């Protein structure tokens, strides 16, 4: 059972890959830059999903994939033009297919109505094409003279005996094109074998000598005797895809009451039944003698299974792609932790050597330098293992844009850049939500309606660009649109109305733009269900900050806006400011710090008995003595003469933290406190400094929230720490 679950899991993993291919291919087709190979790849992706789904009896998935595949086959055959309408249907179908895969994976229910609607839409496309249906065995002429010299092949395992059934004699002689299009006779025969009592004979007479053998050719023929309760249409349906590329003859030999079970047949054939309506396509190409394709692998293998080689030859880049292995994530994480420790150890060693007073030119120092270089390289290498390209994330966004364009009536194209940029997978996972929100924002608020755009002299189709790039040890992700830009006048009015700023406040353009990040700010005039659900850009900003990143905004009226995020490449390290408080060393996350200052006596004002505030940019920020709050000292230090860190919290209120001194600004490796202890309020994690001692990393949000709640709670904390 466990192995089955594992295989199933592998199937779904492969589905993910196939869906990715599918989307890439469809997008290329939409842009009109697709060659026949792309179309084939798209077809193959859907076909593989269908095949795998069949093996796991995921009937719903099979049914839809089959319909989808049928339409794609029409495109592949050149009978269905890749018009924008068609491509939109195809992309939507791909989305639905992805949803069905996801639903099957988690055994969730599926919106049947949506599936049916999409199937109907796909069928409508196929209907248009099959105006001129041909006989099922059209183009058969070429191979008429074939005589069979049967080779018996008993496939007992597959047989399922049906009691009351008709006998069919089926003759199948594939043409090379059948394999070239990615079909496989073995699969067809297997399907047949499932229908009832089955006997197959293979005709190998036409296999030439090896020197004359074209590895891409097709030389086998099959004769099948099938006793089944399925009707003839079901058999025809099985050959639906190959009927143009083979000689097919289905003769009914009514040995039993063949027609009687007809009533039960539709039930058995149910999953793919809707397709019976579209039996055959226009068949312009008669089976031609094999034409060689260059670069074919192992000729010997092809004799037995020509289709295999066909597939291999069809995608040469797959063979050339790099070999990969699947590794348990836990192992990678452990390795990363170990290397983190190695780095700390190395730093400690360096410090000790320095303390020992050894000359920089000494051999010890030189060896240490080499060690440092090596550890750094090891660390980078190990981090790279967990790094993943942002491509899958970006692909998800293109789906969102598609759904939005359908919902809003705007015409928007998503252009992506730098998809190969790699970043730690933990970052990628937590980037999806904020990025989705920003993309929605760009389409919903950024890009104008087509008529507005045209009036402004811009093309009706708007463009949202999503790009990723590495810049000085961080990843920068930009979301830009070519829309109207930020309406600063309106932003200002809303901010005043919502009392976020004073009516007479003098703000620069940049400051107005940044008002978008204020909590409770939402510029949508009506609250749509697309964006503006009471959460706004402030949530985006907060999630980016939680990742140790920063977000900035730039906008030009009439030309669009650019939101750019700068994020660390990994969550295992953090940029922090090392500060000293009451003889304890603490690390404050750099992303939270707005500014640092040394207050003058006039800046600090008492408020009530205990509370003090500091004037900061026209407002007042509460002063929090970090040492007192954490219980390191009983009395608050005098802010004058101390250093004040102005930080911004989750709720975007500013707070001024009083510390004794700033030591350093550096990257620290994050260490869990929970692993051996438990969560400590106000503390995010711990780290180990160069001297080997543990330093705590402040969690600004919970720290400040706690201070606000327990103004007088410090006494008990003091008692606790002693």
């Amino acid at each position: 059972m466990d192995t089955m679950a594992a295989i199933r899991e592998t199937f779904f993993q492969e589905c993910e890959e196939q869906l990715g291919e599918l989307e890439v291919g469809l997008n290329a087709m939409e842009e009109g830059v697709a060659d026949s190979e792309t179309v084939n790849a798209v077809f193959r992706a859907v076909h593989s999903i269908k095949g795998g789904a069949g093996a796991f009896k995921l009937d719903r998935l099979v049914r839809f994939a089959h319909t989808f595949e049928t339409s794609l086959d029409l495109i592949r055959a050149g009978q269905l033009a890749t018009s924008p309408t068609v491509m939109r249907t195809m992309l939507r179908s791909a989305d639905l297919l992805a949803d069905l895969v996801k639903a099957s994976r988690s055994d969730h229910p599926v919106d049947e109505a949506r599936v049916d609607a999409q199937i109907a839409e796909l069928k409508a496309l196929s209907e248009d094409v099959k105006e001129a249906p041909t006989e099922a065995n059209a183009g058969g002429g070429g191979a008429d003279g074939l005589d069979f010299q049967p080779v018996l092949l008993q496939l007992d395992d597959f047989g399922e005996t049906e009691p009351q059934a008709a006998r069919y004699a089926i003759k199948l002689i594939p043409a090379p094109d059948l394999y070239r299009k990615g079909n496989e006779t073995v699969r067809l025969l297997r399907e047949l074998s499932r229908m009832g009592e089955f006997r197959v004979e293979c005709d190998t007479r036409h296999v030439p000598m090896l020197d004359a053998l074209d590895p891409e050719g097709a030389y086998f023929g099959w004769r099948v005797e099938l006793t089944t309760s399925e009707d003839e249409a079901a058999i025809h349906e099985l050959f639906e895809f190959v009927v143009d590329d083979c000689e097919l003859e289905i003769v009914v030999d009514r040995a039993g009451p063949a027609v009687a079970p007809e009533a039960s047949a539709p039930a058995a054939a149910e999953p793919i039944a809707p397709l019976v309506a579209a039996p055959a396509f226009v068949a312009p190409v008669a089976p031609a003698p094999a034409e060689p394709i260059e670069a074919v692998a192992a000729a010997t293998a092809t004799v037995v299974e020509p289709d295999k080689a066909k597939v291999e030859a069809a995608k040469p880049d797959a063979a050339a792609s790099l070999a990969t292995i699947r590794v348990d994530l836990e192992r990678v994480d452990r390795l990363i932790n170990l290397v983190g420790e190695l780095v700390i150890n190395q730093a400690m060693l360096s410090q000790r050597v320095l303390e020992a007073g050894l000359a920089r030119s000494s051999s010890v120092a030189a060896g240490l330098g080499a060690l440092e270089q090596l550890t750094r390289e090891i660390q980078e290498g190990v981090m790279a293992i967990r790094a993943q390209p942002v491509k899958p994330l970006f692909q998800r966004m293109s789906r969102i844009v598609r759904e939005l364009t359908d919902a809003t009536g705007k015409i928007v194209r998503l252009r992506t850049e730098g998809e190969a940029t790699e970043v730690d997978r933990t970052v990628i996972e937590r980037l999806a939500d904020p990025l989705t929100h920003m993309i929605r924002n760009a389409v919903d608020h950024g890009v104008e309606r087509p008529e507005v755009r045209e009036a402004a002299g811009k093309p009706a189709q708007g463009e949202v660009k999503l790009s990723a790039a590495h810049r000085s040890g961080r990843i920068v992700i930009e979301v830009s649109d070519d829309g109207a830009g930020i309406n600063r006048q309106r932003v200002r009015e809303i901010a005043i109305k919502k009392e976020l700023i004073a009516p007479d406040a003098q703000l620069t353009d940049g400051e107005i733009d940044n008002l978008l990040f204020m909590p409770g700010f939402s510029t949508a005039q009506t609250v749509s269900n697309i964006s503006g659900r009471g959460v706004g850009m402030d949530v985006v900003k907060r999630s980016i900050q939680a990742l140790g990143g920063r977000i900035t905004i730039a906008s030009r009226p009439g030309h669009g806006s650019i939101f750019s995020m700068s994020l660390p490449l990994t969550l295992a390290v953090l940029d922090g400011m090392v500060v000293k408080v009451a003889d304890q060393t603490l690390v404050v996350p750099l992303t939270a710090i707005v500014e640092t200052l040394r207050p003058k006596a006039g800046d600090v004002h008492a408020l009530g008995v205990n509370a003090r505030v500091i004037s900061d940019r026209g407002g007042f920020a509460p002063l929090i003595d970090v040492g007192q709050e954490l219980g390191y000292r009983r009395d608050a230090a005098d802010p004058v003469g101390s250093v004040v860190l102005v930080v911004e919290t989750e709720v975007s209120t500013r707070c001024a933290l009083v510390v004794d001194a700033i030591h350093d600004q550096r990257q620290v490796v994050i260490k869990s406190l929970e692993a051996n202890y438990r969560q400590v309020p106000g503390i995010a994690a711990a780290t180990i400094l160069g001297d080997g001692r543990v330093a705590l990393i402040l969690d600004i949000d919970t720290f400040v929230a706690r201070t606000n709640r327990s103004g007088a709670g410090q006494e008990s904390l003091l008692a606790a720490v002693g």
Partner: protein
Amino acid sequence: MNEVSVAAGGPREFIAFRIGVQEFCIDIMSVREIRGWTPATALPHAPAYVRGVINLRGSVLPIVDLAERLGFPQTDASARQVIIVVQVGAQIIGLLVDAVSDILTLTTENIQPTPDVASDFVKSFVRGILAIDGRMIGVIELDGVMLSETEAAA
């Protein structure tokens, strides 16, 4: 960690250590290593017996002052004190004691129940006593040494 109370049969080894003038011991199987005292980084909002955290080869290790935990005066930590690194469940913690005194090989028959004179609080850690060569050694059960999160929050 119920080995002490379960009659597993056969001799087992215990590490004995001193807290002040009294002697205690723990099952050697839960001991990972013994190391000297290094200054700990104080943890805010921690119970008094948690002296802070130290760096144990890259892991953050909380240090429990066993004396204070058992209700004795706080240990005056210096380089003379030792930290016994033990595994309790999935966590690794350090126990601050005055000195390691002995390794004892015992069978469960040697362990006598804790006399009723002891308070319930002491009994929650000291699951039995040993009498060897005129010495009395308390057998400490590690499960209760670190409070659970909910208890600590109270």
